[in-house]
């Protein structure tokens, strides 16, 4: 797909998220917007998937470590054809299969449980190793937030992945500098974070996480390495492309009103 098409899909997913959280009356819209472009490239260009056969063992794997951003994962899965779009409005309700955080057994296309922060890299590493051991030639893609990199297990997994030479593991760090309670730079000494991954012997690239061409190119570079895990550090904007959400942490978890949904439609109408 072209860069323009993928950018438009990213914005389509953003609007899906706004509409979904509005209809469901619950969810985390802000954290979805910063990863929309990465999601678009992965699900609509890069990953080897079969929506008709979600458990096809040769497929690429995806781990949304920052599982609270699941509205955009569910939107991507629906638009890929894993389930009907109208199911999205059931998000977080008792009679829907769309759980508050990703569930691998209830939701077609979801490869693991996620949502308890910090665990995605280790789980992705296990997937990468499991595929490698079975001779499956594929990639495991993980998206981690920056806030969750405060969790110790991220670095346990980083250490193990380098030792295990996990060349089939590609991790995107969504560096939007926000977490639930405020700015990452105020709550921790995580930054500069790229240096830390390099110190753990990962291959590190730094890009603009909203530049679709850069995302594609970074994946291509990461795939050239067969014996080192890759981190693609993505500078992003929380709430990206929804004007009232941009860099506004109040939208970490908040439900847009009908007027706010309209504002989002207006902002995105020529970009989808």
């Amino acid at each position: 797909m072209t860069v323009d098409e993928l950018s438009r899909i990213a914005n389509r997913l953003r609007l899906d998220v706004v509409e979904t959280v509005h209809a469901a009356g619950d969810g985390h819209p802000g954290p979805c917007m910063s990863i929309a472009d990465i999601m678009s490239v992965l699900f609509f260009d890069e990953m080897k998937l079969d929506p008709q056969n979600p458990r096809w063992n040769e497929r690429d794997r995806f781990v949304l470590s920052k599982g609270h951003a699941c509205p955009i994962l569910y939107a991507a899965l629906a638009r890929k054809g894993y389930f009907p779009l109208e199911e999205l409005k059931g998000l977080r309700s008792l009679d829907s299969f769309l759980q508050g955080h990703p569930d691998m057994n209830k939701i077609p296309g979801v490869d693991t449980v996620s949502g308890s922060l910090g665990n995605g890299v280790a789980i992705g590493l296990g997937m990468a190793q499991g595929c490698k051991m079975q001779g499956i030639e594929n990639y495991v893609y993980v998206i981690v937030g920056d806030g969750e990199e405060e969790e110790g297990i991220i670095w346990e997994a980083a250490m193990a992945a380098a030792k295990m030479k996990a060349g089939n593991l590609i991790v995107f760090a969504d560096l939007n500098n926000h977490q639930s309670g405020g700015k990452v730079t105020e709550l921790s000494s995580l930054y500069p974070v790229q240096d830390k991954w390099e110190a753990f012997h990962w291959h590190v690239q730094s890009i603009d996480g909203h530049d679709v061409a850069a995302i594609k190119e970074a994946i291509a570079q990461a795939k050239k390495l067969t014996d080192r895990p890759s981190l693609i550090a993505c500078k992003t904007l929380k709430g990206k492309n929804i004007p009232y959400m941009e860099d506004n942490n109040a939208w970490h978890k908040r439900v847009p009103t009908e007027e706010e949904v309209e504002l989002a439609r207006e902002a995105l109408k020529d970009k989808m």
Partner: protein
Amino acid sequence: MNTKSTREAAMLAITEAARRDDKIVIISPDAVAAARATRFREEFPDRVIEVGIAEQDAVDIAAGLATTGMKPIVVSYAGFLTMRACEMIRTFIAYPGLNVKLIGLNGGMLGGEREGVTHQFYEDVGILRSMPGVKILTPADAQQAYEAAKAMMALEGPAYLRLGSGREPEVFPEGTPYAFGKIREVKRYGDDVAIFASGFIMNRAIEALEQLHAEGVDGTLIDVSTVKPLDSQGVAEVLRRTDCAVAVEDHNIYGGMSSAICEAACHYHPCKVRRLGLMDIYPRSGKAAALLDAYGLAVRDIVDAAKDAMAKE
């Protein structure tokens, strides 16, 4: 079977299973030697994933492996596994019901003995019993550890095998039957009282049954080698005969096998059940036998508890 310890016995069964199934892989947070998996690693060098001292990582990696169809076994000390990696077991293995096996070493006060509280683990069974979907196996000697490990490998889904220090006495004769999910009558003199026991304290329970007999009390000793799912119907049948019981385990009295027995008793046959375990305190370092004696798990304690259970209030 020629093994020296419970840990070796269990690992022998794992190794035999691994010869038949190339999906079996061991995840070690620096526990290969402790789990007696050195020979497994020699035989299957590519099927041991060493992650360093990082139990949480080990459990999550196992979860990821299991999603691809591999059959990972995480080996570690019981507490580091069930406490440090508790949430990972619950959320990423038990909740999705992944086929991951867990082997916990140093189960009980006896397991950690001279190491002290940091390495004695009497909460593991209670912690895991509170998680839906995790099966719990608590063998009583090397032969049973072998059988339990073998049975565990034949199960689908999450399961936990509790092992001890590896120096536990042999208590059951060669050829003693083993069945996952079933209690087993070890010896029955009569129905005056039932003794339910699980794990590596079985030798004391056997002695207590004999002592009771010598003192004119004819009881029944029941081996509870599967704590979850508990054979509740089997327990109920025993309680209907004896109408009183004592439950003995090397675990805190909250959450473990004795709690499970009481839950079954409440439901099927309410009666007096005396419980012997660690009485909700932290013990000290010491030699195994001295520790058990000091903390209320002497043979005499079991005998007295059995008589107390029989006494009308």
